[in-house]
């Protein structure tokens, strides 16, 4: 065993430089990938996405083989699974109690949370880019070998809608994870609550025409179909406030004030 090395450290000032944000984000990114659950989740997302494209390629008729359809096929599993990554990023600190170490090394809790949002955001964007590339490759393959039309009609608008759709899903996962601080509860709340609302609003006659204002999936549907316009944007904003921003605000407040054990 060696002796401890250097001398007692430098003098200390409150104003001296803290941990830079870029470093916090890099460490949070690493934490998303260095556990088996994180690595498997990402591998799972890639596999399911690739599987969905292959299945679609060989089951749909030639007229369906357009870039737009292929993107929709690949984005759905991502929008479903990426939020789990967001949930794990924030709840892992509580479920595994690593928050004791994380928040001792960076006592400014808001910065840690911001770094987690940035890290999952980076993975989200990377994942969408990969999706678009996969859909493009499938489109080329479809027109070359499967007599597909190979239409590229999609445009910037489509890419923007797709990014927004995935970003909202990811934010929803992060928000529910931040609020509940428990992996199992957050996954249940993320998967069950919006679905229950969708069922309620599609089955009860009096509620059906109000669904766009309250039901998350009803308001996101036009975005997914790239047909969103007019009042639908307001409805999307409204459900984003109920389902994402309010839980997030409550979660941030809770994080900043609670005891970390």
């Amino acid at each position, binding site marked *: *065993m*060696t*002796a*401890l*090395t*250097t*001398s*007692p*450290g430098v003098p*200390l*000032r*409150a*104003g*001296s*430089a*803290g*941990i830079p944000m870029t*470093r*916090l984000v*890099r*460490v949070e990114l*690493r*934490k998303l990938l*260095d*556990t*088996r*659950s994180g690595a498997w989740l990402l591998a799972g997302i890639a596999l399911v996405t690739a599987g969905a494209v292959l299945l679609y390629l060989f089951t749909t008729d030639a007229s369906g083989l357009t870039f737009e359809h292929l993107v929709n096929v690949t984005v759905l599993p991502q929008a479903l699974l990426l939020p789990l990554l967001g949930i794990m990023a924030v709840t*892992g600190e509580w479920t*595994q*109690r*690593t*928050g*004791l*170490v994380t*928040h*001792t*090394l*960076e*006592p*400014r809790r808001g910065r840690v949370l911001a770094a987690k949002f940035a890290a999952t955001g980076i993975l989200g964007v990377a994942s969408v880019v990969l999706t678009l590339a996969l859909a493009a490759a499938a489109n080329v393959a479809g027109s070359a070998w499967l007599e597909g039309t190979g239409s590229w009609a999609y445009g910037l608008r489509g890419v923007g809608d797709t990014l927004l759709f995935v970003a909202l899903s990811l934010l929803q996962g992060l928000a529910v994870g931040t609020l509940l601080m428990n992996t199992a509860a957050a996954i249940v709340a993320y998967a069950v609550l919006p679905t229950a609302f969708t069922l309620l609003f599609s089955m009860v006659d009096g509620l059906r025409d109000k669904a766009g204002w309250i039901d998350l999936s009803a308001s996101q549907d036009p975005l997914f179909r790239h047909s969103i316009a007019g009042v639908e944007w307001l409805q999307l904003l409204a459900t984003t406030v109920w389902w994402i921003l309010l839980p997030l605000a409550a979660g941030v407040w809770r994080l900043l*004030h609670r*005891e*970390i*054990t």
Partner: protein
Amino acid sequence: MIRVEQLTKRYGGTTAVDSVSFTVRPGTVTGFLGPNGAGKSTTMRMLVGLTPPTSGSSTVLGLPYARLRNPGRHVGVLLDAAAAHPGRTGREVLTLGAALMGLPRSRVEEMLHLVGLTAEEGRRRVGNYSLGVRQRLGIAHALLADPEVLILDEPANGLDPGGIHWMRGLLRRFADRGGSVLLSSHLLREIEVIADELVIIGGGRIVAQGAKEAMLAGAGTVVRSPDAGVLVAALTSAGLGHTARSDGSLLVDASIDHVGRAAAAAGAVLTELRAADGAGLEEMFLQLTAHARDEVSA
């Protein structure tokens, strides 16, 4: 340097920590001693900003901990060795800490070596570690940045006797270089060998604190007689204050000389007569522990 002033934490109606104040000076090891549930961990969590205190304040190196920038560089903290992701390897846990603090990667290998973890153990996942190995990893994490202050909650838990001996040497050298160490334990024996100062807490309140030497010395005389009644009468008539100890002997608040003369004058047979040497401390601690156990079982 650690300064704790009037720290108090209430949960609803119960007071977990009640007006706790103490100081840990550079160059010393301060033992923070108390039975389980006495408020040690809550105090330490308040000290590092994880638990907001109900009232009171604390500083580490002259600043409230939460205002330290990159605090890991100056303060090594181990609050709970079990609080690690079971899916990460030991080396990865240290790598994450070093990366966050902005330390060179070489520190990871140095610390693994320092705490006696083999390369093979470093590659294993924390979930497969024994508590002893987790404690060593936690101590390695606390020492990563070669800090000036160490705050360790029950670091000897799960360590084997050899490990405890090793840790004592490590903390001694750390303090001798000018570092401040706050070390908690629920076992008096574990801490009295290494600590320079003792802070004893029970039921959320500090019941005794001071230099270990002073607390162990001058604690009176232990005396035992088969004729307990005769001895008690002798001590009482001589005006010597005394209390019964749990092992049947008496702790007398007087020097050996006085106790011996009082016993001889009454003709009491003695089977034991010695300076207390910390027996008072031990007795007080046993009572604290018994009291805590009563509260748990009640």
